[in-house]
């Protein structure tokens, strides 16, 4: 492959590239906010793994967490941030570009 072609290809954001983190960000991009339990049910993940991946997304500034009490029960909700949405859009663009390059190769 020519050198200029290799350098022109975009790199995939490692924070989003993990399968569970990608699934979470995609789910959150289609709703206004979602509870931890709903995300767990949709992804089929364990509490520990889900919490760890959500924390990574939160640390990157891609999701925002809110803890509140509803009818005296603690509720943790997550919502995608503007930078999270932008990162997901960029990731999809990069994926498409890489797939296009792979077809062309």
């Amino acid at each position, binding site marked *: 492959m020519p050198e200029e072609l290799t350098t022109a290809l975009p790199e995939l954001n490692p924070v989003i590239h993990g399968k569970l983190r990608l699934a979470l960000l995609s789910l959150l991009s*289609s709703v206004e906010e979602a509870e931890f339990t709903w995300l767990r049910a949709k992804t089929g993940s364990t509490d520990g793994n889900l919490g760890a991946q959500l924390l990574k997304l939160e640390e990157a500034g891609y999701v925002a967490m809110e803890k509140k009490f509803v009818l005296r029960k603690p509720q943790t909700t997550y919502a995608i941030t503007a930078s999270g949405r932008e990162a997901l859009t960029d990731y999809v663009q990069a994926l498409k570009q*890489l797939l296009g390059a792979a077809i062309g190769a």
Partner: protein
Amino acid sequence: MTDMTERQELQDRLSLIEQMMAEGRQTTSSWGWVFVLWGIAYYISIAWSALGHSAVAWPVTMIAASIITAVASSRSRSGQPGTTAGRAMSAIWIGVGVSMFILLLSAGIKGRMDAQTFIAVVAAMLGSANAASGILLKWRAQFLCALVWWATAVVSCFGSEAQSQIAGMTALFLCQIVFGVYMMVLEARERKGQAGKTSGAHA
């Protein structure tokens, strides 16, 4: 071979994004029962009014149906994420419901509305709500209900009192009871399909 594997992996990532976005948009909330409940509530009000208690029948039945709807829907939605489409639907039905309640209650108390005007107003308002929902959901069946309600409103204005009542009862049966049951059947099928899909691990 490696290129093929990498390409497949990239394709899997893209499919995962599409699948998750589609699942996020899907709702497991059920609304068919609300149509059936309100259809029954209208029939109870009509029957109760026919016995000569119209001043009490309508407000009592409508308030009871509103309370049941609010309590049961808040329970069924708990844990479900909020979506823009869901909020738009709630806005339409809450707006139309409150408007109907205030207008019809006030007009009923002051005796400013005869039976035909009452049916025409209810039919026109339900027509608007069904049309807005049908357009938002791109659902022809619900838009058809809107057409039935609008036709009822026209019949109530131009026809006799008997024709107006027959049109109202027919629209109520088709657009509340039949449509509600149809919606419940579709929701049950959708839930079955989703249960099958989510049983597989996503990540």
